[in-house]
């Protein structure tokens, strides 16, 4: 699955989302549930704002000193018997992973959830060399079974599907015969997956945070699948975005506290796993061979720019879970495996404006995302920075709009012109007014009146009333 999903244009993706009643109901109910749970978890912890400040500080410090911590991480992984590979591009990462798999004669890979492997299309790269890749996260498994339906959410990838749709997928693809009860569906998947775990040669995981001081990786899950994927196969490959790093275990504690509460409203997820190096003599399990693939794929180009804070993201999806636009168009509307506010910031940075120029404008800048972000990324500001770049630097805005904004600058940038314009407004709109309302406006007003009425401009502007009143007061006085 590459970062870009599908070939449809933005407008038709949005239309499709809006018309998908099942998906919208699923998103509405998930947003409602997660919103309450997140707020309750934050309140229970107490001093949430201080935790956020602390989280922000850790992320800022780490990103400002990323080269130092990456080197420390790399040295410590090597010291514990692991191999580290820095991949500048998706291709480099995939080639390295393919080579490891080939060397081990790997036929079957069992995976735990990882967005960065989606971003670099790792599964396809492995399938090209004849390797079978099995997703073991339940949501990802459902999507994989369903002819590689793209994820619509970074934490809950199959959020757009309800349980009866999942039952149908299992029925059609795997011969499932039971009901749509989540317990029965899960048990079925669990039995299928257990066989895969036992027969896989290689385990591939993502990484929530790598800990630089010890060369460890941490995995935050609720299903325990990442533990199986890292204990059963003899070879483990972990793929991480280059920014997913914390300096110390103490920092990890803060980040996991913020992550699990922000993502799913839990104090702690069922499993938080820390893994360091390869299997030691006397260890009961763990990989004999460990590879850490650190992926750049456009991230270092963001460092030092006005968008650096986007790299602070810890992929909790709190911004997605509060976004009123995501609520109505769903994840696929964004056309990227990274949807919602963080997706609208990140996708153009990693995938280019030519693919994602609409996304920064698909927001009311309501700042619900900024308010929810546990590491205080000013998401709505970053969206507006994209807008400025698209308009002023890339010159990608429509000519009519540029003219209108020039007009706005002259009109609102000159008190005289402004006064003339506002004085003329009622006269110009009179032909379109019925019973005090414009219901079918001309030109630039039309998109507004397609769904809403517009009040007619006041014949007496506020300023006229104020001056008249002042004059009267003077005469009276």
């Amino acid at each position, binding site marked *: 699955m590459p970062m870009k999903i599908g070939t449809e244009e933005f407008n038709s993706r*949005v239309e499709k989302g809006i018309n998908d009643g099942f998906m919208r109901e699923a998103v509405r109910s998930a947003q409602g549930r997660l919103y309450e749970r997140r707020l309750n978890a934050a309140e229970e912890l107490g001093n949430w704002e201080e935790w956020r400040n602390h989280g922000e500080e850790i992320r800022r410090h780490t990103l400002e000193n990323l080269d130092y911590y990456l080197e420390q991480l790399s040295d410590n992984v090597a010291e514990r018997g692991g191999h580290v590979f820095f991949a500048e591009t998706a291709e480099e990462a995939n080639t390295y992973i393919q080579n490891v798999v080939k060397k081990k004669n790997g036929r079957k890979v069992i995976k735990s959830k990882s967005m960065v492997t989606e971003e670099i299309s790792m599964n396809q790269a492995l399938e090209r060399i004849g390797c079978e890749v099995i997703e073991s996260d339940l949501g990802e498994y459902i999507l994989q079974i369903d002819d590689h339906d793209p994820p619509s959410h970074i934490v809950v990838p199959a959020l757009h599907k309800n349980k009866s749709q999942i039952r149908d997928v299992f029925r059609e693809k795997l011969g499932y015969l039971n009901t749509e009860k989540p317990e029965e569906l899960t048990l079925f998947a669990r039995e299928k997956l257990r066989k895969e775990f036992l027969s896989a040669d290689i385990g591939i995981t993502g990484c929530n945070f790598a800990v630089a001081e010890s060369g460890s990786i941490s995995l935050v899950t609720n299903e325990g699948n990442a533990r199986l994927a890292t204990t059963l196969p003899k070879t483990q490959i972990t793929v991480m975005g280059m920014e997913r790093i914390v300096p110390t275990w103490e920092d990890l504690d803060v980040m996991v506290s913020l992550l699990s509460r922000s993502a799913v409203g839990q104090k702690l997820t069922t499993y938080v796993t820390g893994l360091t190096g390869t299997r030691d003599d006397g260890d009961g399990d763990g990989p004999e061979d460990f590879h850490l693939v650190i992926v750049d794929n456009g991230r270092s180009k963001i460092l030092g720019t006005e968008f650096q804070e986007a790299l602070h993201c810890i992929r909790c999806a709190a911004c997605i879970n509060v976004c009123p636009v995501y609520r109505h168009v769903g994840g696929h509307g964004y056309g990227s495996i990274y949807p919602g506010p963080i997706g609208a910031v990140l996708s153009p940075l990693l995938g280019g404006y030519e693919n994602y120029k609409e996304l920064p404008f698909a927001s009311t*800048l309501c700042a619900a995302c900024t308010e929810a972000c546990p590491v205080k990324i000013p998401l709505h500001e970053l969206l507006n920075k994209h*807008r400025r770049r698209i308009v002023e630097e890339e010159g990608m805005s429509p000519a009519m709009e540029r003219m209108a904004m020039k007009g706005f600058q002259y009109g609102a940038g000159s008190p005289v012109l402004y006064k003339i314009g506002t004085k003329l*407004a009622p006269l110009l709109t009179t032909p379109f007014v019925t019973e005090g309302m414009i219901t079918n406006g001309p030109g630039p007003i039309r998109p507004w009146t397609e*769904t809403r009425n517009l009040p007619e401009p006041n014949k007496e502007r506020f*300023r006229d009333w104020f001056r008249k009143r002042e004059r009267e007061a003077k005469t009276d006085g």
Partner: protein
Amino acid sequence: MRVSLFITCLGDIFYSKVGKDTVEVLERLGCEVDFPESQTCCGQPAFNSGYQENAKQVAKIMILAFEHSEYVVAPSGSCISMFHEYPSLFKDDPEWKGKASDLVDKSYEFTQFLVEVLKVENVGAFFNGRATYHRSCHMTRLLGVKDAPIALLENVKGLEIRELPNCQNCCGFGGTFSVKMGPISEQMVDEKVKNIEETEADVLIGADSGCLMNIGGRINRQGKPIQVLHIAEVLNSGNWE
């Protein structure tokens, strides 16, 4: 206390009654209200669409318009929060940046001014009705004004406030978003109207004319019997003679 009213472009053109009510409430509370004639618009339509250079010219006009004001008060949290963007707009121009910061320091949204500066939570208003309140995003999140309007409304005699479901969600206005992203905006405002109806309120109160123009425009289009009022109109209701 001398207060300069920033009416906002929507207030000047479409909602002059909101301006009148704002003036009357402020005067009743002892303020002397003036209206700097050279004010225009805060520049947000350009700024939030990516046209920062165009917005800059407008920002300069506004900075000059209120240069000599003691306090600047507007019946809109969104437009005041736009003032807060001015210093960063002039980040490479120390002279204008300084002037922009001065403007930010003395500017208040209407209910924020009543509660924080005048220290008034009860204006003595009387309004008989069942209402719900839409909390505007920019006012609550960017300006941080959450409690002031609620405190003021709670003290209005005869007014019953019903809690609005999903009150944290944006109404779908977003300035140029409402026309650039029409279909998404429509879904957002429709859900907002539905939530308002669920409260069985007869009146929707808000503190930002942009949001009210959006929600009110949709309510009006659908012919729903819900009255839409700016908080200044409610706070100026009663027997004042």
